[in-house]
Structures are given as C-alpha cells and as structure tokens.
C-alpha cells in the first residue's frame, strides 16, 4: 500500500474516547508538532463510548515513534498501535464521478468490472463509481478514469485492522517501544 517516493508512510490505529473535542485535541497535537497526516478515518468501535481512528502518517521511524508517543500522551487516547509491519487488511472507500456518454459508458463499465468496483448512479452525461480497496487500487482506478474526465472524487481515507482474532481494544494494543505509557 506504500506509494512511491518519500517520505515513508505508516499506518497507526488509535482507540479513543468518543467525546466532544477529542478529534480537535488530536489534530491540534499533530499540527502543533508539525507531524504530517496523509489520511485520517474515524468511526465507532465495538465498544460503546469509544471510537477507533486510523491514521496514515508520513515520516521516518523516529518521527513516527514521536507521533505515537504524543498521541498516547493525550488523556482521551486509550491505545495506540503502529500496525504497519503487521498482518493487516487495509481498505479505503472512494466515490468517483466520471463524465460519460453513450460511446464511453461501456468502456468505463469494463474498467469498473476489472476493479470489482460498482456503478452506483448513472446520469445522461456522468456516472458515479464506488470502489473499495487499498490505497493503491483506488489510486489506479482513479488514474484510469482520468482519461474520461473525472468530475469529483470523494475518498474516506484508509481504515485498517489486524488479521486473526485479537482485538486492539484489549490485549494486543500496546505499541512496542518497551514500556511507554501515558504521562
């Protein structure tokens, strides 16, 4: 799922309190310390009152370590995991509005089928493609559709989860930097 060129990207997940202002605390910390977020996705977790966030961040190892530590330092953040090197499933959802007409429609549909994407709306001069997959797959489809004329793209940002039975809210959630915790 890495894109080409620097800086390297890492995937971090966090279990956080579902309270007003928590997103502000997190984004404020990233801004203040000059950390780069490539994408950020937030949603409810399996536990009431807790949300789970997936960050795709940019930076070298020591920068990413600092990010995870400062994230964990926030009182409303319960668990932080850098799962980049683990066996994970990562997905992004995108809605892509493409120009189309009678001549191009079937060609677009063929491409959409190859990507196992869907057409979710058809208008006389455009259609909307729904695609999910890792970031590279979404990028590739977007690239291919550009030749028809992409009107608008809406992407959710990556969400990621570990394969296997473990839950990140329970036992497996600690970042492995020895013994770091909150302050």
């Amino acid at each position, binding site marked *: 799922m890495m894109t080409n060129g620097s800086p390297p990207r890492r995937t971090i997940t966090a279990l*956080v*309190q579902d309270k007003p*202002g928590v997103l*502000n*605390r997190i984004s*404020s*910390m990233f801004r*203040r310390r000059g950390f780069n977020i490539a994408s950020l996705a937030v949603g409810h977790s399996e536990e009431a009152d807790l949300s789970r966030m997936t960050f795709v961040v940019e930076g070298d190892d*020591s920068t990413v*370590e*600092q990010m995870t*530590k*400062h994230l*964990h*330092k*926030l*009182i*409303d*953040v*319960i668990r932080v995991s850098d799962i980049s090197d683990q066996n994970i499933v990562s997905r992004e959802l995108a809605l892509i509005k493409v120009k189309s007409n009678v001549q191009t429609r079937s060609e677009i549909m063929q491409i959409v089928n190859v990507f196992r994407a869907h057409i979710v709306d058809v208008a006389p001069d455009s259609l909307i493609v729904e695609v999910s997959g890792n970031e590279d797959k979404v990028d590739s489809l977007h690239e291919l559709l550009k030749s028809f004329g992409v009107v608008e793209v809406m992407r959710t940002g990556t969400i990621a989860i570990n394969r296997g039975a473990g839950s990140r809210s329970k036992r497996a959630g600690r970042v492995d*930097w*020895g*013994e*770091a*915790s*909150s*302050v």
Partner: protein
Amino acid sequence: MKMTGSQMVCESLIREGVDVIFGLPGGAILPLYQTLPEFPQLRHILVRHEQGAAHAADGYARVTGRPGIAWATSGPGATNLITGIATAQMDSIPMVVVTGQVARAAIGSDAFQETDTTGITLPITKHNYLVMDTEEIPRIIKEAFHIASTGRPGPVLVDIPKDVLQEEAEFEYPDSIDVPGYKPTLEGHPAQIKRAARVIAESERPVILAGHGIIFSGAYDELRELAEKAQIPVITTLLGISSFPDDHVLCVGMPGMHGMAYASKAIEDADLLIALGMRFDDRITGKPSAFAIRSRKIHIDIDPSEIGKNIPVDVPIVGDLKRVLRKLNKMVKPATHLEWIQHIDRLKREHPSMYIRPTDKLLPQFIINQLSKATEGRAVIVTGVGQHQMWAAQHYMFKDPQTFVSSGGSGAMGYEVAGAMGAKVGAPDRVVWSVAGDGGFQMTMAELATMVENRINVKFAIINNSFLGMVRQWQEFFYQKSYVATQYTHNPDFVKLAEAFGMLGLRVSDKTQVMPAIEQAMSYDGPALIDFVVEEEENVYPMIPAGQSIHSLIEEPRPEEVVAR
C-alpha cells in the same frame, strides 16, 4: 446530598486538600465566589491581574509540590491567565485552574465575555474540561487533581458555565478514578535498569545531568546516593538547581548557554551521560548534532515522549525517578573515577566561570553572591527571565531542595513578582527573595499591592540596569551594539514606588551598601524592595550562542593572574 455546582467545586477542593486560591472574580464565575464564605477553610487571595493568579499558583506549587489553584472569570479573565498556564505547562507544574464560562445556552453565540477557553488552553494544558453537567463536577475535579499531580505534572483547566455553577445536583465525591487513557508508568523496566547499571560500570567518565524531575519525584537522597556510591559528578539543569546541594564536592553546576564552562566541557568530555528527569532543552544542547557526541546516554524520565525527542538515547527508562533510582542504586557498583574527577577539577581551575572581577562598580554577580552569603544559601530564590536569572542561577549557592523558583521553558518575564508571592504563601516559614529584572518587574508589579494587603512578606532585589539586559547583550554580541528598543530611559523611582505600595523601599548604587541593605530588608517586618542600580552594560558569561556547540563558547575576558591561579 444536594448542592449547587459552586458548593460542589468548593467542597471538592477541600477534599483535595486545597487551602489557598489565587483569583479575581467576574460575572461568569460570580456564583462560585459568592459561595466562598460558606467554606472558611479556603483562603482566597485577591490578585490585581489574573496573570498574577496563575504565576502565584505556579510558585506555590513549586515550593510545596502540591497543585496551585487559580480562579478567573470567562473571556478576559481566562485569557489573562494564559501566560501563567503556558509557563506551568512548559515547566510541568501541577496546577488546577477553574474558569467561569457563559451559561450553556449562550456558548457559541459570541456572548459578552465569551471566549473558547478550553480551545485556547488546549495546547498549553496537560488536560482540560468544559463541564456541561453539574453532577459531573466532583468527578471532574477529582480527575483534574489526579492528572495535574501525577505522572509528569502539569496544569489542568476546568471551565464551568455560570448556570452549571448555579444549578443543584446530588453531590457524591468519588473514591476512585477511572481514566482509561491515563496510566503513568512508575516502575522502570527491570532489564533496562540492569543494563543502565552495566553501562555505568563500563564508564570511565560518567556525568549525571539532574533535571526538574528529581524535584518532582523527591529523589534527592537517591540522586545523592547514586552520585556518591559511584563517584559521578552531578550537573544540574536550570530547573534542576537545588535538586543537589551546590556545595557538594561532586556538584559541577549548570551547563548550557549560560552555564558553567566546566560543566559544558565535562559533558563534552564525558563517555556517559546519565540524564535524570530532564528533556535536553535547546538551551542545554545548543546544536543537538554536536552535543555530547563522545558519550552514551542513559535517559530516565516519566514521560516516554521525551525519550528520543531531541537526542538519541542508548538506554531509555520510563518511570518515576525515586523508584527507578532506588533499584538502580542497588545494582550500581562502587567506583572512584579519580582521574575523571581530577580532570573536572582542572576544568574548574582553567575556566573559573564563577569569577567576579574586582572593581568598585556595582556588579549584579556581586549582589547575588552577597545575597547567597546573607541567607546562607537557604532562602527561596524566585527569578524572572534574563540576565538576572542567569546570575542568580550561577552565583547563589543553593543548599536546600525546591528553593530555586524560575520560569524555565517558557521564559516568562514578570514571573518574579507573583511567582514569589505564591512561593511565600506556600512556604511561609522560609525567607523568600525575588531576584527581579527592572523590565520583568514592571510587567507584573501590580501584585505588590496584593502582597502588602495580605502581608505576604517577600523581599525584592531589583537588578536595575535600565535595559532589557539579555536582549541588549544579544544586540551587543550579534547586532553590532545596535540597541534597538531595549533601553528604559525613564524607569520609575522604584523606592518611591515601593513606598506608594506601602512597602519598605531602599536604593543601593554603592558596593559597600549591598550587605547592609540586604540585612535591613530582611529585618523589616513586611515586604521590602531594594533597587540595585547596577552596571548597565554588564554581560552574562560564559555564553554559548544559540544553536552552537561548546566550541563557540565565549568566556569573560579576565586578567592573566586569575587564569594562572
């Protein structure tokens, strides 16, 4: 039991052991103030400006180790606290700040005296709360004290809308705390502690860099035991001053930008740095890539995010210093490091940074030296920020823990006035001297009235050079003496000013009068001020310019015989 939100705040503060509040009322917080007479255990000190309340709470916390309390109203009341809260955050000072807020229904409407206080203070507090339910007050106050005073301490702000203060609800003070995202690591990792002991045993030229964390943890005896057992010289950071006695044979003083040359050189020559409760601030490291390149580093700190932040570390240990050092001291082997200590002694002789040149003129360094003698190194010294702060750090010989009170990370001029007020309230039995700059003093001097009113017996030594001295020094060194906007050509008469406030005021411009004036101020029963009219263009030496390494060290020019001494 049913209580109003205001009663809940007061009752909760009492349960947390609070005795003093520094504050200033206003519309939104008025319900809380009107409840105060029901709680005579809470002493309220009415300040003249909310910045004074925040600095006083900070000074109180620094000498007692307990959270200082500041109250202010919404809007300008809250924004006036900001400098004080940011100062506490940078120096990890436990504080619980309560601000009034406009009523819930008015929040977001740009109501009169409405400010987004939790938004503004978000990056300068350890945590903050906007209380939207009266029944939540006890839990939130308990959490606020817990978060402020444990782990790496820091300020916590609780913003309470006026109608939340007025409303009634059932009061139940929780016995326990449940903050799942906040569990400070206290015990260091055993394998890492063992590794640290091994690395210390392998070292021939170790130094300890003792920081503020020693004071927070109260690890004075443990630090001393480590130093003495393995004969390791101790360097103290600015805020680590008073964590180790200055007159101890192993004490090497403060390093860095205006630190002792021999301390900075010892760091440069060391093969091991043992960094305890400090954060490799740029005033110490200068140029991080050239800092202590010959040494391995052991870094023990309670905040994992400080480890590896500025300087790469070989042995990281996250934990409470007192607990970690107790374990480490058991494993550390006795050593002598005779050659290394002789090397540092030689550095001390060759680079006498404590040198005060003989002259009839009134030098600031001499004043601090005399103050140190007059108080036998046992006073609480509160400073502002700038030249006088560095001279105080260099020339006062601190003997007791927790006696140096200064705005370090934030560098807030003006801290010296209300910071000293809070320190005296926190340590009423100690002599408290504020070593002030004429610039900083004038930023916050309104609190002199608070001190006279409340009989808070602080003594002020204004190091008056009619300049913003440190900035002037930078202009002299780096801007060809172009003194832009640093000279006060018409300072007030500080003696008359003191008298106007109802204090004793003295002026000293002659060296021979320094000691008599200090003694007169100390024997006076009440706050007193000495206006020391000093050499205007005196510089602080040594100096390592910002962002530079030890190789750019500038030392005070001195006569040959002193070098040869």
